[in-house]
C-alpha cells in the first residue's frame, strides 16, 4: 500500500533521511522505533510532503506522491497525527472534526464512524478542544485525522504522556482500525506497546531503516530493542 524506496530528505543542506526503504501494508500495524534523532518524525514529514524529498519515491497504491504539494497528500489517502496533538484549541470537538473532514463528502457518516471509535468524544462535542484532557485531546487528534478516511494512518507517539486507561483506549482504537483494513504506521518508543500492537517493526538509526522484524519474533529482551532503542 505505502512503499518508500531510497527516500532521501532533510532540511536545507542537512540530510536527515538517507535512502529509506520501508513498506506499510493494509490491515497491518507497522511500528517505527529508534533513538532520538534517528529520523522517525522526519520520515513522517517526508511522507506527508512537508519535508522536501531530494531522492527516492513515496508510492501509495502504486502512485508516486513525493512531488505533490503537501495539501494534496491527505486527499490521496494519507493522514498524519503528529507528536503533541496540535489541535485547533478554540474550536469545539465537533468543529475540529468538521475541519478534519473538509475535503471529504459524506461527512455525517464518517463522523458517526469516528465517534463510534471514540465514544467519549461524543459527550464533549460542544467543548473547546483546548479544554479536553490530554487523553481526550489525543483521541480527538486521531479522530480528526480519521475524518480524512485514510488508507494509511501515521501516528507519531500517540500514547506519550498519557495515563494507562487512555493508552488502552487508544490501543483498542488502533487495533480496530487495523481490523478495518487501514495501514497504520506507528512511531512508538515503549517496547510493551509495540509488542501488543505491531505486526512488523522497522528499526531506524542514522536516518535509515536498518532492520525490519516480524513482531511475533520479538520479545522484551530482544537484541533489536537494545541495539536501536537502548532499552
Amino acid at each position: 500500500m505505502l512503499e518508500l524506496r531510497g527516500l532521501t530528505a532533510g532540511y536545507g543542506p542537512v540530510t536527515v533521511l538517507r535512502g529509506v526503504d520501508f513498506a506499510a501494508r493494509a490491515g497491518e500495524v507497522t511500528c517505527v522505533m529508534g533513538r532520538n534523532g534517528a529520523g522517525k518524525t522526519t520520515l513522517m514529514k517526508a511522507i506527508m510532503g512537508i519535508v522536501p524529498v531530494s531522492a527516492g519515491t513515496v508510492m501509495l497504491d502504486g502512485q508516486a506522491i513525493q512531488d505533490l504539494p503537501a495539501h494534496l497528500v491527505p486527499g490521496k489517502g494519507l493522514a498524519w497525527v503528529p507528536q503533541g496533538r496540535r489541535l485547533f484549541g478554540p474550536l469545539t470537538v465537533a468543529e475540529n472534526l468538521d475541519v478534519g473532514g473538509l475535503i471529504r463528502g459524506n461527512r455525517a457518516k464518517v463522523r458517526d464512524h469516528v465517534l463510534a471509535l471514540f465514544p467519549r468524544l461524543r459527550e464533549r462535542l460542544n467543548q473547546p478542544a483546548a479544554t479536553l484532557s490530554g487523553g481526550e485531546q489525543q483521541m480527538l487528534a486521531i479522530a480528526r485525522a480519521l475524518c480524512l478516511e485514510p488508507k494509511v494512518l501515521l501516528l507519531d507517539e500517540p500514547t506519550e504522556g498519557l495515563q494507562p486507561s487512555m493508552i488502552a483506549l487508544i490501543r483498542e482504537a488502533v487495533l480496530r482500525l487495523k481490523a478495518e483494513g487501514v495501514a497504520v504506521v506507528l512511531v512508538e518508543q515503549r517496547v510493551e506497546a509495540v509488542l501488543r500492537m505491531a505486526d512488523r517493526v522497522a528499526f531506524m538509526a542514522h536516518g535509515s531503516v536498518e532492520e525490519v522484524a516480524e513482531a511475533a519474533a520479538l520479545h522484551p529482551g530482544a537484541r533489536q530493542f537494545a541495539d536501536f532503542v537502548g532499552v
Partner: protein
Amino acid sequence: MRAWAVHLAVLAALLAAGLLLPGYHTTNLARILVLATFAAGYNLAFGYTGLLSLGHAMFFAAGMYAAALPAWHWGWPAAPALLAGTAGGALMALATGALALRTAGVSFMIVTLMFAQAFALAILYFNGWTGGDEGFVIPSASRHLFGTSLAADTPRFLAAWSLFALGLLLSLALVRSRFGRVMVALRENEERARMLGINPFAAKLKVLVISGAWSGAAGAAYALLFGYAGGSFAGIQYSILPMLYVLLGGAGTTLGAVLGAGLMFYLTEFASSVTSAWLFLVGLVLVVLVLFAPKGILGWVRARLWRELP
C-alpha cells in the same frame, strides 16, 4: 440563535442611539460605524485568520478612490460608486495578496506595509488625478442615495448603520460557517490545516479579498458620506487604526471592531479635550488594557463569561 439575537440587539441599540442622540453624536456614530466596518474587515484577516497586515490603509484608500474618482471626474451616483469602491478594495487585496501571501509572519507585515506605502506615494505622484495630499471634495450631486442626500445627519447615519449592519451580519455568518472554521484553523496551526487537505495560500487569499472588499466598502462609504477623499487616508495611520480598534475590542470577536472603534473614538476625543498630550493618555489606556485584558474587552468576556461568543 443566542449569538444572532445579541447581534440584532446591538444593531437595534446602535440604531436607536443614532436616531435619538443629538446631531453631533449622530455624526460621530456614522463615522464610528464606517470605521468599525473597516475594522471588521481587518478583523477577518487578523483576528480570525492570523494575518497581521500593516497594509489595510491601501484597501481602504483603494475603495475610497475607486468610488470618489468616478464621482468627481464623471459624476457617478453614490450606489455604483459604492460598488466600485467595494470592488476596488477586493481587487487591490487580490493583486497584493497574491504576492504578499508568499511570505508569512513578520515578513507578511513588512511586505503589506511596503505595498501600502507604494500605493500612498502613487496617490501623491498622480496628484493631477487624485488631488494628492490635499484631496478633493466629492460633488454633492454624487452624494445622493435613493433620492436622499447623504450630507444630512440622519440619512448619513442610516447609510453608515446599514453598511455596518450588513457587514456585521455577513461577518457572523462567515465566521460560523465551515470556512470560518478553516480561518481559525489557519490561525491556530497552518501546518496542521495543510495536513487536513486545506490549501493555506488559497484560503488566506480568499480571506484577504473578503477583508479587502470590506475595507474598500468602508473607504468608499467614508468618501461618499463625509464628502472628501484624500491621500492621508492611505497613510500608515489608517493601517494601524483598525488594528488598534480590533485589539481594544477583542481580536477574533465579531462585535469587537465596533466596540473598539467607539471606545477609541470617544477616548481620543475626551483625551484631546483635557490635555494636549492626548496621545499619552490614549497610550496609557492601551497599556493598561494589554496588561489586564490582552485579548481585548470581548476577548476577556469570552474567556470568563460567554465562551461561545463569536
